[in-house]
């Protein structure tokens, strides 16, 4: 398997940006809301936004270039969202309905982004 170094670079930059933004948003939220509610809110906010962005990136014309797809979809949206924090949260607090709801609302957020991206793509063709 050959390595596409340009793709690796783009994904690294996007992933780094997404991770740093997630860290800053989490810090901001957990400074104002105590654990465990703050942690849950922070995880939910980043995961919903990230899922929406990935859905948007699936169809929106702007994201279809090699650069944008790798930086914003594969790198940023993936690095911005987190499942390891969710797993750690479940391990310490137990599985709750909020976590179960987050999983389903993540699919919904992706679907909303996907639909908006598709509408925008159709309008761009007209």
């Amino acid at each position, binding site marked *: 398997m050959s390595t596409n170094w340009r*793709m*690796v670079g783009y*994904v*690294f*930059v*996007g*992933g*780094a*940006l*997404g*991770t*740093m933004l*997630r*860290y*800053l948003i*989490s810090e901001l939220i957990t400074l104002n809301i105590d654990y465990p509610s703050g942690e849950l809110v922070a995880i939910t906010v980043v*995961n919903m936004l*990230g*899922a929406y*962005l*990935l*859905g948007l990136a*699936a169809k929106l014309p702007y994201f279809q270039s090699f650069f944008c797809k790798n930086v914003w979809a*594969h*790198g940023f*949206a*993936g*690095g*911005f*969202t*987190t*499942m*390891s*924090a*969710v*797993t*750690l949260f*479940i*391990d310490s607090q137990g*599985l709750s309905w909020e*976590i179960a709801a987050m*999983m*389903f609302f*993540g*699919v919904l*957020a*992706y*679907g909303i982004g*996907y639909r908006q991206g598709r509408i925008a793509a159709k309008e761009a063709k007209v």
Partner: protein
Amino acid sequence: MISNPVLLALLIAAAGGVGSVIRVYLTRWEGPIPFGVILTNTIAAGFVGYIYSGNLTQDYLLIASVGFAGGLSTFSGIAKAGFDFWHTGRLAQIFISLAANIVVPLLALMLVMYWF
């Protein structure tokens, strides 16, 4: 101890970038359920279990867990897989996929924390 908060944020970002690159390669493994996504989330959860069992300082813990494991694991990939299944009418696979992405990484985390 990393005293400079900007340097800490940059190191977290760099770790997240490395995790993201590994994730992109691992998530190429697809199938009846998104095996690659489950694998990355499981490795990330196992890694988090390992570092939380050790005695890293707070800063290095943040770099490894929030940075590397956060960049490696993905929630948006789960959402994408779930939506793709819904789009093609494979409802059972949505539930299996969502449940597997919770149960398998959680088991990995608990097993690693138990062993180390």
